[in-house]
């Protein structure tokens, strides 16, 4: 086992990362005994595990992801949602209401319209990348009120932070509620419009400076400054 990069080193496609029996996660591929990066990103090595955290790229739906979709079309038994991804999501009435629906008796257009934002979970993605969504359960379904912000999907883990540290900090400092979908869409709810705007600004800062250190502290200071009446 030989390692050719340091942890969190910037790597480019085709760069040799390691040789030997590593467990491969995203952003890497193997040829013979050699492990290479397939994207521009930060190499991360933890014992046997090796992966590259991409710095760019679109959202690809994965089972279990929480996403925020926007309804783009309706059909007789459900809706098609834009997921800020090459692949659209399918949501059926039963997946939204969590009960059996008699389509002859009930008009489903009363539940969602084109343009509505929906908080949903990806329950299945098949090999043809057809995406099944479910939006029952608490906190799921049609999103009302609040502000929708779109950032690069690769930066979402930074918005959430280690064990949710960043999003917890933003919520407690600003008094706004935050919900980050893996597809790069974030909902913000808050009574104070000034603070909501500050959170939007903070999120855009995170997107720009996701790869710098000490970001949580800087965002905290920024929000505290706005909160105490600063610009």
């Amino acid at each position, binding site marked *: 086992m030989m390692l050719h990069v340091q942890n969190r080193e*910037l790597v*480019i*496609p*085709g760069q*040799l990362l390691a040789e030997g029996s590593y467990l491969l996660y995203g*952003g890497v*591929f193997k040829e013979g005994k050699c492990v*290479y990066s*397939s*994207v*521009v990103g930060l190499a991360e090595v933890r014992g046997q595990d090796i992966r590259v955290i*991409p*710095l*760019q*790229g*679109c959202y*690809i739906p994965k089972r279990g992801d929480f996403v925020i979709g926007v309804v783009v079309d309706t059909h007789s038994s459900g809706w098609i949602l834009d997921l800020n991804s*090459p*692949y*659209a999501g399918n949501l059926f009435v039963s997946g939204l209401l969590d009960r059996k629906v008699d389509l002859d008796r009930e008009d489903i257009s009363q539940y969602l319209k084109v343009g509505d934002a929906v908080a949903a979970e990806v329950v299945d993605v098949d*090999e*043809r*990348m057809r995406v099944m969504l479910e939006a029952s359960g608490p906190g799921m379904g049609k999103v009302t009120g609040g502000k929708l912000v779109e950032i690069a999907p*690769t930066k979402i883990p930074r918005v959430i932070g280690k064990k949710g540290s960043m999003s917890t900090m933003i919520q407690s400092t600003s008094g706004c509620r935050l919900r980050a979908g893996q597809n790069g869409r974030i909902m913000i709810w808050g009574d104070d419009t000034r603070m909501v705007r500050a959170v939007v600004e903070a999120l855009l800062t995170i997107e720009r*400076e996701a*790869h*710098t250190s*000490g970001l949580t502290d800087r965002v905290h200071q920024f929000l505290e400054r706005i909160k105490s009446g600063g610009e």
Partner: protein
Amino acid sequence: MEKPEKLMVDGKRLDGRGPEELRPLKIQAGVLKRADGSAYIEMGNNKVLAAVYGPRELHPRHLQQPDTAVLRCKYNMAPFSVDDRKRPGPDRRSVEISKVIREAFEPVVFTKLYPRSGIDVFMEVLQADAGTRTAAINAAAVALADAGIPMRDLVSAVSVGKVEGTIVLDLIKEEDQYGTTDMPVAMLPRKKVITLLQMDGHLTQDEFERALALAMRGCEQIYEAQKAALKAKYATKPEEE
């Protein structure tokens, strides 16, 4: 353009380079805001802009492949890129170049990861001085990496040729037009696999082998510049106040 009397004088070329020297090279990644990935390259007087969009939903729908992404490349020359105004729009030459560039990238991009989607690569030649297809490939490789598209390797390309009996690297317009041979080569720098090779003119077997070896050395230099361009974009920026 008139034919110069001699293309090589005392082992120096028209622009003062030695036979095995590249033209000045400048690559910049991420120059376009609205593209998913982009790059700008200057190889001597060649100026090419490349933009990558995708993977995204592919339209028209009938082009979608159920098991892979479809790579679409478009090479285009601006009307003002050459001495005599070029009639705008696709022509025989640019359609062919688009095709060979697509085939140069197909073995590199992990298209199987994104079924039913499309990846679009646009290469716009703003100023041409021989070897625009190689410049376009170099820019497109950086733009694809900048878009976060998984790839086995980058692709580096350069042209070699024969001018008045000498094997030379990275031809300029005069050498391309009045020289004996022009041979663009694209390869994967890591494994030294050739993904594009065309030849206009002729070479003996021995000359061909020397030319190919020279092209590989040229590609390595270009690869270093591509790497540097990508790392420059993503290097940790100094902390802001």
